[in-house]
């Protein structure tokens, strides 16, 4: 049997806060606490996948055995700038306008 979920420490508020940072989702403390409890239950249930001894079983990432699917290398028109920018929250000079990405100038 593979290592079981029982050896995993319980999910804490700090754990969820770390995952939320990785996933770029702001969360209040009460949301973090609520989610920690729910994650604990869900992880306890899904840890059952570890009951299946599977050292020699290859993983499946996809239902179709496809490799290197190509299409003919022919140029065709792409979406125009107007169409691409039509749903932008902010646009300027034919570009997406985004908030600052650096901490300081």
């Amino acid at each position, binding site marked *: 049997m593979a290592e079981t979920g029982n050896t995993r420490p319980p999910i804490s508020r700090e754990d969820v806060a770390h995952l939320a940072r990785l996933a770029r989702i702001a969360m209040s403390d009460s949301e973090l606490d609520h989610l920690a409890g729910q994650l604990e239950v869900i992880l306890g249930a899904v840890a059952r996948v570890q009951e299946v001894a599977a050292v020699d*079983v290859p993983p499946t990432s996809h239902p179709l055995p496809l490799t290197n699917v190509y299409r003919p290398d022919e140029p065709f028109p792409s979406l125009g700038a107007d169409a691409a920018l039509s749903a932008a929250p902010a646009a300027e000079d034919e570009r997406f306008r985004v*908030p600052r990405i650096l901490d300081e100038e």
Partner: protein
Amino acid sequence: MSATDAGDLTRLTAADLADRIARHDVSAVEVTQAHLNRIAEVDEKIHAFLHVDTEGALAQAKRVDAGEVSGPLAGVPLALKDVIVTKGLPTTAGSKILEGWRPPYDATIVERMRAAGIVVLGKTNMDEFAMGSSTEHSAYGPAHNPWDLDRTPGGSGGGSSAAVASHQAPLGIGTDTGGSIRQPAAVTGTVGAKPTYGGVSRYGLIAFSSSLDQAGPCARTVLDAALLHAVIGGHDPHDSTSIDAPVPDIVTAAREGDVSGMTIGVVTQLRGNGYQPGVLARFDEAVALLEKAGARVEEVSCPHFDYALPAYYLIAPSEASSNLARYDGMRYGLRVGDDDINSAEEVMALTREAGFGAEVKRRIILGTYALSAGYYDAYYGQAQKVRTLISRDFTRAFDTVDVLVSPTTPTTAFRLGERIEDPMAMYLADLCTIPSNLYGGPGMSVPCGLSADDSLPVGFQVMAPVQADDRMYRVAAAVERALGTDRLLEQAPAL
């Protein structure tokens, strides 16, 4: 009111409507207007539609009447799940983060349906990003089951199934990642098919879990589902996971419905504890009728199906956590907190906090956990191995049987609010449908009567080998024929 009442065009099948339109007994505009009127009359109670495109629908109907487009379903109205992108027409995937978004392109299946003369009435309600089994995770409020307005029409494609069940449209499009076409079909007394993975293009299907997502037809009869499947199916160079081979002859299979000489396997693991007695009674009755129709029936054990649900709830959230990273408030959709002080990263976090609902956040966090260093092997990696074992169960079973069958869902439609605070209870709704997604083969639900427990519809699931969608339609059509369930919706309460 009977299905043959020619006075009500909304009671006819898609095949019948197309036939009458082709013979000029009725115009496509009249058919479309009748369905738009029905939407205006009943959708306040059902909430199947998030957006009705009256103008676009009538314009398309006029093109059919003018002979500009034709096909076996020309002029037939359809309810389109809001997870499929439509050029210029609002597309939200049931999420606030895409509120007001008008995509700059059409999905391949939308292009194919337009070219075939199908009339898209509007976009249907769904659980946000197709994550859920009840439509209660829609950011725009839930849809209601026409059989009992206090119950859910299933999910995530509950809007399409409810629209079809309440005669607002004879056809619908759904998408099925873990059961989102089949489970709503089962609990609304309609037909829903998940084609073989890769059988219908995913280009323009807003991604939830790319190795599992598959679009497919919703209808009131097996033949109607097959006709729609034939229009949308087939190779698409825009989707590199699309199968480059012809769609099996599903329409002939649906017309014939002949199971004589077939071997049908009843899955041991998909019955027993947790299944309502009324569901099992109807299922067993349908199996007996298939035997009477000339099929051989045997019980088949698929031991790893017991691990399908846990594997799915690792694989799907993991893929979702990656797919949904695109909603960052930079290029389209909602942007929150852009005050010239917050950084791009802070704006992303605030946008995603405001734009995503509780279930989507829960799955993103779960997926982020399952993929993180230190836990990857024990969770995501192990789930991928289980996926292999489940596929082996299928291929081994198909060495001896032609199709596998089970109830589509363990229970009939549950009440709104009943499972919303208990994610694991909600996830159980997809217990029987998930194995086919993990394997990649086709699966469909056909009604097999009403449960004696609560007089609500029960779904019969047929699962077939990869690229043997025709077998699935053949068996579903036999069930429909033996039980007369193409008329089941006549027993639904009037709205």
